[in-house]
């Protein structure tokens, strides 16, 4: 290895640009309010006001997302004009919760503002895309409204400075994911996947809620900044460790970390725009946002960090391996999301106070761009070829050349090849993990560094595999390549060559299939996979990271080697699918997520159902028996009383006298 100069991230960052001094137009609340309210109102209007008109529903959905984009962009500008670059906003005022303060405030800082822009932009693209993709769906309007609500919830979580608001957004996202995944509710697979997503994430949410309650009650307030300040003053304590571990469990559920990972690949049953939204910008990334907000507490607890690091690393490596073996492009992308989200969370575990949590948010932003691009392009291809199974999409990027750059750039960004956006964010992650393992990060950082290093070639491998399959020359192109016309000098009709005709036809069909707005959205995302790097280079991101160029080179080299190996393995397979070399049993197991579903059923569902039946039996046969017995008993007693009560005057008198004697006795004896 040549000795390379050291490089700081700040050397790469863009210089501060003097901005024009525009007036600060804060009409009726801050831009964060506008972004959240616009999407929320779009959701309500989409459900209530659009009647039976898809067109109106689309306008409402797209309009809401557009407003959010404009508002979040404006928010960026307002941040440049504010000293300290942090902005606090109130919402509906505090809640009266007795001793617990709940001011329900929002907080905007540069990282969260940039995440908000990303979320809003991806939501806008998804809305535009869904307008095309689900145009003939009878339930398009509820879909658009749910996407709007989902966006509002995510924006709320991003901007929230209150654990209560975070929880609200968190739970709303859970329900929205259920609705979106189960959109085609007549299909049993979709209904099951939706139910599974809801049950798994909600099970993990038990930990999230308990953690939040523990943190808030300890601090006496639900305001995040004050909670962080309170617990930082207290320092490391068993209570804090417990609370953070519970919180990590909750995050693991939403972000599909091991052992909760299996719901996310199943969520592919939802329509492609929903997958793009869930995978790219919202749901799974929410855990990263929340933990970044609580980062100052996370560094205090070694146990919670180690737990997070172990879960994230296991998930990162395992999901990357599983992604390689999937026989469906969408499922491959889903497992890659599991792996990439684990990467974001791993860096949170590895980071120290010196480096800060910003690398995770930067990767969130980068991941949002390329993952949304890949999903939406896959959906487009799926419409053209009638499915997303690997065998079906073979040569897709060749037959429809308009998809070629979209797939290519997206996969390059996913693999982390310069100069695409994924490269920058992965460099930051590597730098952060290295700084952590060299500094105060301890075991967790070392583990993360090793795992990130190991996952890079794995990611490159499955990206290469997907690319090889997608980019396999078609039969005609193969023939054309094999056929060398002699040096006959003749003027030929261009369109006589079958290869040319096929390409032209492919472009024509692909362009004709999609609407211009949806296509523009994917073009925008494609642009962002390149230009997104500039966003990451903005001088507004947090503490500095030291870059080790040797490590970078070694990683790139490893990636190249693994890509080469995949290329070699793919040789000789008809579809150029390297995964065909995997034994059938292993391939099947990978496709089924290593039978995690069976494990869920055996370990959780069956015992819980058995317990429920037992409780129901106990309630019905034991408790209710008492109640029924009370009814029968009262009736019997009443009949006895009726039969024994005197019918004539004489026994009545005896009763009176006996009563008097008893009462007088009690009256004299007892006091």
């Amino acid at each position, binding site marked *: 290895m040549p000795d390379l100069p050291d490089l700081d991230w700040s050397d790469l960052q863009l210089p501060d640009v003097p901005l024009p001094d525009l007036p600060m137009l804060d009409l009726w609340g801050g831009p964060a309010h506008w972004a959240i309210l616009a999407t929320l109102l779009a959701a309500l209007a989409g459900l209530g006001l659009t009647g039976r008109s898809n067109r109106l529903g689309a306008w409402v959905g797209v309009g809401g997302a557009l407003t959010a984009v404009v508002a979040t962009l404006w928010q960026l500008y307002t941040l440049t004009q504010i000293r300290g670059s942090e902005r606090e906003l109130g919402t509906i005022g505090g809640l009266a919760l007795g001793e617990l303060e709940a001011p329900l405030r929002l907080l905007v800082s540069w990282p969260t503002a940039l995440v908000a822009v990303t979320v809003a932009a991806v939501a806008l693209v998804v809305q535009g895309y869904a307008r095309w993709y689900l145009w003939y769906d009878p339930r398009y309007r509820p879909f658009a409204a749910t996407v709007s609500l989902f966006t509002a919830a995510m924006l709320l979580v991003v901007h929230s400075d209150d654990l209560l608001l975070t929880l609200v957004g968190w739970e709303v996202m859970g329900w929205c994911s259920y609705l979106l995944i189960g959109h085609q509710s007549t299909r049993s697979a979709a209904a099951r996947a939706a139910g599974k997503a809801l049950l798994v994430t909600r099970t993990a949410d038990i930990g999230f809620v308990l953690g939040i309650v523990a943190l808030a009650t300890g601090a006496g307030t639900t305001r995040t900044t004050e909670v962080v300040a309170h617990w930082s003053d207290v320092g490391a304590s068993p209570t804090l460790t417990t609370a953070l571990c519970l919180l990590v469990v909750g995050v693991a559920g939403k972000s599909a970390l091991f052992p909760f990972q299996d719901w996310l690949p199943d969520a592919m049953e939802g329509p492609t725009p929903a997958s793009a939204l869930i995978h790219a910008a919202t749901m799974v990334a929410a855990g990263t946002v929340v933990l970044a907000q609580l980062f100052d507490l996370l560094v205090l607890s070694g146990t919670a960090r180690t737990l997070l690091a172990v879960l994230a690393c296991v998930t990162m490596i395992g999901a990357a391996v599983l992604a390689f073996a999937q026989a469906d492009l969408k499922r491959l992308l889903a497992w890659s999301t599991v792996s990439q989200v684990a990467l974001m969370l791993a860096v949170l575990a590895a980071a120290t106070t010196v480096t800060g949590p910003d690398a995770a948010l930067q990767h969130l932003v980068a991941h949002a761009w390329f993952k949304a691009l890949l999903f939406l392009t896959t959906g487009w291809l799926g419409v053209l070829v009638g499915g997303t199974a690997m065998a079906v999409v073979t040569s897709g990027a060749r037959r429809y050349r308009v998809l070629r750059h979209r797939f290519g750039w997206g996969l390059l960004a996913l693999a982390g090849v310069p100069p695409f956006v994924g490269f920058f964010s992965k460099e930051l992650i590597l730098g952060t993990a290295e700084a952590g393992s060299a500094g105060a990060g301890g075991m967790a950082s070392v583990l993360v560094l090793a795992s990130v290093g190991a996952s890079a070639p794995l990611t490159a491998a499955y990206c290469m595999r997907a690319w090889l399959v997608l980019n396999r020359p078609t039969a005609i192109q193969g023939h054309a390549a094999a056929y060398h016309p002699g040096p006959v000098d003749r003027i030929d009709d261009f369109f006589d060559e079958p290869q040319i005709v096929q390409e032209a036809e492919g472009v024509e069909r692909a362009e004709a299939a999609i609407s211009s707005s949806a296509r523009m959205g994917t073009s925008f995302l494609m642009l962002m996979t390149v230009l997104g790097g500039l966003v990451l280079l903005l001088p507004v991101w947090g503490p500095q990271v030291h870059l080790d160029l040797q490590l970078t080179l070694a990683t790139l080299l490893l990636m190249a080697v693994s890509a080469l190996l995949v290329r070699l393995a793919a040789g000789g397979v008809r579809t150029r699918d390297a995964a065909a070399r995997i034994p059938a049993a292993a391939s099947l197991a990978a496709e089924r997520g290593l039978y995690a579903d069976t494990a869920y059923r055996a370990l959780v569902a069956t015992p819980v159902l058995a317990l429920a039946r037992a409780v129901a039996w106990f309630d019905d046969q034991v408790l209710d028996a008492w109640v029924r017995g009370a009814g029968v008993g009262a*009736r019997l007693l009443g009949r006895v009383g009726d039969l024994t009560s005197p019918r004539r005057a004489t026994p009545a008198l005896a009763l009176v006298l006996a009563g008097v004697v008893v*009462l007088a006795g009690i*009256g004299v004896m007892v006091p």
Partner: protein
Amino acid sequence: MRLQLDLVAVLPVLAPVLAAVLVLLVDVAVPGRRSPHLWLGAAGLLGGAAAALPGVWQPAGDTRQGLCLPDGWCAYAADDLTSMLQLGALLGALVVLVLAWPEWSAAGSGGGVEPTGRAPVVTALLLTATAGVVAVPAAGDLGSLLVSLELATLPTVVLVALVRTTWAAPRRARAVDGAVALLTTSLVSFGLLALGAGFWAAATGSTRFAGAASVDHPELLVLAAVLLVAGLAFKVSAVPFHAWTPITYAAAPLPVTTYLATVSKVAALGGLVVVVRALGTVEGTTLLAIALLAAASMTVGNLVALTQQDAVRLLAWSTVAQAGWVLLPLATLSSRAASAAGSYLVVYLVATLLAFVVVVAVAGTVRHGPVEDPAGPAAATALAAHRGLLRARPLLAVPLGLALLTLAGLPPAVAGVVAKVVALRPVLGDETWWLAVVAALNVALGIAVYLRWLVVLASSEGSPQGEGPAAAAGAGGDTDVRTTVEATTGPAVDVRLWVLVGLLTALLVLGSIVPLGTI
């Protein structure tokens, strides 16, 4: 010794008595007339009520006094609670009078065997009994209490026995049986009362209630109080002094039963309040006896009511159970207890009156013709006669439902709920947990009792008459059934009953909007 009479204050008692005397005089002067007596009686009751009305609004602590001695002690003293009870008793008696109107003003049978009917006698009896009832709560000493209590009881015995001569012989015999049961029980109770009064006088050295601040023999005083309570308890039909209740209620004419179930209770409660107040002034006494009576009454009353098949018998046992509720707050001997018991009694009074009025109305529609039903009153007052009443006569069924809900203490009838809460409050404040638990269990039991009736009202099967001609009409079509139902609903309900139903319902609704006892 000079007695200061102060007749205006005593007018609530005096007015019915005067009316009774006038009734008898009129009967002597103009024999053979029937309705003037009833009008006179109504006027006397109304006059008494009007005289009692100002007392209701006097400030707490003030009393309207009469029959005072120069040393300041008065044999008659009515504060706001007493006045409220008097007002309730007088108006309740008026309702009974209106209920009994057609029966009492009817001519006797056999055209000359009983030419004048019973109008003057029964009216005078009702008035004197009511005068006694009104006098009891205001009694200032043992003598007044005993005399007024007997005045309130003995005329009712005659009222029970003095049924129409047109009734079938077995029924009349049953009525006499009922009267005998009432008479013997009341006599034994009077004996107990007299004994208790004697002990009281021995323990406190005085026959007056006020001013017994300290006593030499607390055991003796407690014994006296227990005996007094036992003597009064028969009138409120508390277990185990209740045995006469089902016998007499089922045998007596319905209006008289109504009187016994409502107005008579005021006397008993008034007496109990007097005793409890007198005891409350003595330090360190408790009255476990009342708590036991309350618990036993509620439980036995509700349990037995649960199995009754006849509306009147069910109401009789419900009276026993409600007596427990009236006694419940008194077990604590606190000052708030008396007013709690009083407001519960008033709510109970209105609801029970309403239930009885509807039962009378339904019985009137079931009977063919005024009397002479071979099945006797049993078929007319059976619960089965109320089947489907909600469809057939919603204007009767809804008030009855409201009355039953009030007695059960279920929400649409807020008055009943509040009354139960108010009755429970002193017990909870006193932390007598066992009694509170018994009361809570009885709330559930009571709901079961009254819901049984409500279910019958709302059920759609059969005609109001059960196994009458409607069933005989057989399996006709819808129209057939409807016409038979219309044909068998019998005579239209008397206008007077409609007025009573309307007024009492309005009172209950008003009580649910502005509940009594919340102040």
